């Protein structure tokens, strides 16, 4: 029988939740990396036992962790437990934590500045990895979206990282600025049908696309309208919170922006709003049903300064029409006195039938639905604040 494995990153460690295909009874392991912020964990589609995790701390910086056995044991890539800590050449290992912007004249871009909160220019400074996106085909290839915004790639299972500097070097960097949580690159989507195409999103710069494997990038923000920036339709500067895609239809993208839910039918070349009847179109995550490419999910949040559900009612909204027409999903979710938030990387779907939907809250609950959102139940209630939720469907 199939298994669902939910990878949860929190403010104080990682947790792994597993269940059989019924998704009624769950085993919870953790905390892994207790006391550290786990911004994101994700498994390789090519090898489900290969997991990557971003472990980070204001004190100690960035650590990349890897598991080769589905989360039972972990190590920093390149320094497995019990193996020599120097390379055969005599060099110390430990490059897996090293994220250095590529400023070389051969492959990189000079380190310019981006816009600071007060409008002045500020130098790029690496802070942490927000999102890890393993390759669809090679477990040793993985991308990292980082703060300050840039994308890195590892081709050796996370042992070493190299910036794809064409994104930061696009030229629009001086117009990028941090959102309230920092200037993070938080979304990486790999097109399963177009080998060299990827989409990324940055708060607050917008969405970008590469068609040449990451060498060059271009902003794809036409149709976005953001009242909080001087030019509401600027090429960059939009606070995109999340983008989602169904693998069967990679030219169709769905976006939750700072305000507005949008859709693109041309791989991001243009966007149109599909907020429709949502009670508020502010929010963070957005995701697509595993088997119905026009069924999408958002969690409306009251406003950009009131990061909790409207009226204290935690509601997931589902559209079965690719946007515009939305229904509230409330069964099993608290409908009074609920003031949690759901962060951008904290929603995921499994590929079981019926499709499972999961999300985590800043109040430490992880909710799951084994029927596409019709009803919900907490898998666990009292974790630290949840930063990210991913799910693997295992045979």
């Amino acid at each position, binding site marked *: 029988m199939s298994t669902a494995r939910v990878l949860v990153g929190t403010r104080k460690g990682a947790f792994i939740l597993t269940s059989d295909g019924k998704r009624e009874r769950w085993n919870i392991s953790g905390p892994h990396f207790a006391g550290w912020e786990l911004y994101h964990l994700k498994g390789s589609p090519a090898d489900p036992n290969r997991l990557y995790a971003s472990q980070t701390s204001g*004190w100690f910086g960035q650590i990349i962790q890897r598991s080769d056995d589905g989360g039972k044991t972990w190590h920093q890539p390149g320094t497995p437990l019990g193996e020599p800590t120097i390379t055969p050449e005599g060099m110390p290992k430990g490059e897996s934590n090293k994220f250095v912007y590529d400023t070389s004249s051969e492959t990189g871009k000079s380190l310019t500045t981006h816009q600071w909160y007060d409008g002045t220019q500020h130098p790029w400074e690496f802070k942490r990895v927000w999102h890890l996106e393993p390759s669809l085909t090679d477990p040793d290839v993985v991308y990292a979206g980082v703060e300050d915004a840039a994308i890195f790639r590892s081709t050796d299972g996370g042992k070493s990282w190299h910036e794809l500097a064409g994104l930061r070097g696009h030229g629009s960097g001086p117009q990028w600025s941090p959102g309230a949580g920092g200037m993070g690159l938080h979304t990486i989507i790999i097109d399963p049908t177009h080998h060299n195409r990827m989409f990324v999103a940055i708060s607050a710069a917008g969405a970008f696309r590469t068609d040449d494997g990451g060498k060059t990038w271009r902003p794809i923000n036409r149709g976005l309208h953001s009242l909080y920036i001087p030019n509401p339709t600027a090429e960059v500067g939009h606070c995109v919170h999340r983008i989602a895609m169904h693998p069967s239809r990679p030219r169709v993208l769905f976006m939750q922006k700072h305000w507005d839910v949008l859709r693109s039918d041309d791989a991001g070349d243009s966007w149109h709003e599909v907020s429709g009847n949502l009670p508020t179109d502010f929010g963070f995550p957005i995701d697509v049903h595993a088997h119905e490419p026009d069924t999408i999910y958002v969690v409306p949040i009251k406003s950009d300064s009131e990061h909790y559900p409207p009226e204290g009612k935690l509601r997931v909204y589902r559209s079965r029409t690719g946007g515009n027409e939305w229904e509230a999903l409330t069964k099993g979710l608290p409908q009074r006195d609920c003031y949690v938030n759901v962060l951008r990387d904290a929603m995921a779907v499994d590929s079981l039938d019926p499709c499972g939907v999961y999300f985590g809250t800043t109040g430490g609950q992880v909710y799951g639905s084994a029927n596409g959102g019709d009803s919900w139940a907490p898998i666990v209630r009292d974790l630290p604040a949840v930063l990210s939720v991913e799910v693997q469907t295992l045979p």
Partner: protein
Amino acid sequence: MIRVVLPAHLRTLARVDGEVQLQVDGPLTQRAVLDALEARYPMLRGTIRDHVTQRRRPFLRFFACQQDLSHELPDTPLPDAVATGGEPFLIVGAIAGG
């Protein structure tokens, strides 16, 4: 052998219990201690000082012999008591909530 005390999270990362003992050749300085520590425990590279600038991470402090050495230059000699192993070199996380 010199003695180094790591904060709890770095002991976990390095998979050690208690103090770390290191052999350091040549003059004993902060840089020499950290070089030896990172060579022995490469998983700590970047967690105490920046990968590139080699500057102390801002929320960490260095102490020994009841002195705050956080703002000493990296090549300033450490107290003799550290060099002889009589006193440990302390790497301490700043108390900053969280």
